[in-house]
């Protein structure tokens, strides 16, 4: 029993981290229709910037988490405004390749700026000691993350469903021409959404760094594939789907590690393929 509960908890926290990354990825795909390989890089940059702020301004974690992502947003703005924007009208492969080019560039830049070696962010004491759950320790920070994930989800939901912005975004994502006909300035909207997506990715990175306990150039390359899988399983462009998808993948891989260790990764990809065949719009996506 104890072990099952802890496998679930581990799965939940892992899933929430993937969600934090996948949310931005999904939002960007939903609105811009671009599958952004470079999203993992924004996750990486988020981690690095957060802890640079933390180090140099000797600020606390929260200030780092507040300021760090802003730098990433600036980077994201440049990427969208001067590069990505020029390939919206091009075929899918061009868009993928463009973002892929940025993965190479950012990985290398991080290596130049922050050094080749790994950096370890300091342990966060704000959350104090681990908490006993059924007689076994579980890190308070993970519980915090398990709480943050849904909060982000709710926040996004409120923004999309309840605000003027959200209505415009939904309009644009469902029908670009219609939106522009209604006087929405789509280019600006796209930039805004992309930057916001980068912000989400950066926050993910900033929150993940103390959890992973280490930052390396290229740390985004592994997470991005997981995020893809989640986005696909949940339904490309569907935030609800991404959230539930992240939960499923997190918990499933936790159980996989526990009970079918050899083929855990294989299982995930079988699930991915199965969903694509059975419901291409994803488990929770609306048919487009």
């Amino acid at each position, binding site marked *: 029993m104890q072990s099952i509960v802890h496998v679930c908890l581990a799965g939940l926290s892992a899933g929430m981290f993937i969600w934090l990354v996948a949310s931005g990825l999904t939002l960007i795909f939903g609105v811009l229709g671009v599958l952004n390989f470079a999203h993992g890089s924004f996750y990486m940059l988020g981690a690095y910037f957060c802890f640079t702020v933390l180090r140099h301004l000797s600020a606390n974690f929260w200030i780092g988490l507040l300021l760090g992502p802003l730098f990433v947003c600036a980077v994201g703005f440049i990427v969208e405004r001067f590069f990505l924007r020029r390939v919206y009208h091009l075929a899918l492969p061009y868009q993928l390749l463009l973002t892929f080019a940025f993965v190479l560039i950012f990985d290398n830049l991080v290596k130049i700026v922050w050094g080749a070696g790994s950096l370890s962010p300091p342990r966060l004491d704000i959350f104090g000691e681990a908490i006993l759950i059924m007689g076994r320790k579980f890190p308070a920070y993970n519980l915090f993350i398990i709480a943050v994930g849904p909060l982000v989800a709710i926040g996004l939901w409120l923004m999309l469903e309840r605000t003027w912005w959200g209505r415009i975004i939904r309009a644009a994502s469902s029908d670009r021409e219609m939106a522009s006909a209604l006087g929405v300035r789509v280019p600006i909207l796209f930039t805004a959404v992309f930057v916001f997506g980068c912000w989400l990715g950066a926050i993910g990175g900033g929150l993940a760094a103390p959890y992973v306990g280490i930052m390396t150039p290229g740390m985004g390359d592994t997470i991005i594939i997981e995020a893809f899988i989640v986005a696909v399983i949940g339904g490309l462009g569907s935030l609800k789907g991404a959230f539930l998808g992240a939960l499923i993948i997190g918990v499933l891989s936790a159980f996989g590690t526990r009970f079918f260790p050899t083929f855990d990764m294989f299982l995930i990809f079988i699930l991915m393929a199965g969903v694509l*065949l059975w419901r291409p719009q994803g488990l929770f996506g609306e048919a487009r």
Partner: protein
Amino acid sequence: MKNKSLFAALILVFLAALVAMPHLSGRFTVYLAMRFMILGIFAVGYNLLLGQTGLLSFGHGAFYAAGAYGMGFFWLHLSPHPLLGIGAGVAAAAVLALLIGFFCVRHTEIYFAMLTLAFGMMVFSLIWNAREITGGDDGLVGIMRDPVTFFGLGKIPIGKDAQYYYLVLFFFVLSVWVAHRIRISPFGLVLSGIRENARRTEFAGVPVRNYRLAVFVLSGAFAGLAGALEAMLQSNARPFMAHWTHSADPVLVSLLGGLHSLTGPLAGSLLFVAMREIVQRFTENWMLWFGIVLLIIILGFRGGVVGVVQNLVLRRRAEGEG
């Protein structure tokens, strides 16, 4: 007409250069030339799918690996005959492509891409985890190049790179020729029809899905050939051949060179191999510069290098006439 003959001449020069290369240049250049030709085979075949039929696959690494491991296992357990080994590799790749393709061709666009990615990564994790058979992450090591025998009727040694080079060259030319034939065949025309307008093609009485599957298997076989040839060149087969990052290579190469021509992927392959090699000599930050070059080509040279050249030629001609 004038252009045609010019083009033909260029091809002849290029071929002559390839044939003469082992005598003109050092071992390393010969090695790079082989890397180029193998990548070229991979890309030309792949482009039948992407450029001709308009399907973006992220799983062709799996077929490349199938070719390499198929070749490796055949060499290991059955016979050291290189041609038979290559045949086995190609067959393995084609069969795998048939299995995977059967599911994948139900979708197009991003869903097709993601589906192929998923299947490709399944193959990767199978190879990685089936250690007893595949050697896990160490891969199959020590694949040797025995002479090509013609069942008693003499034999050709391919142990030396300079010798093996001609085997690779042979398959390279063969592949390019086959790809060319396919492009100008009725089959190829229907494929481009599918790319341009699948719905209409259906109303032309074409069972679109079967054609997609057919070209998927074809390109898979090309990938298998490339894989088998690399297995012999590097004398090993590795799981990462099946990884999606490797599946991205032909995409990259095709876009670098240009999607809508046969020469595109070839030019792209050459550029890819040469660039990676040369950039490394000037900087350790090859990733950075590689990325920047990609950006420039995507944004500046849409239609790839070949496209740009073509435009130049056209403009020249226009000026000439005007």
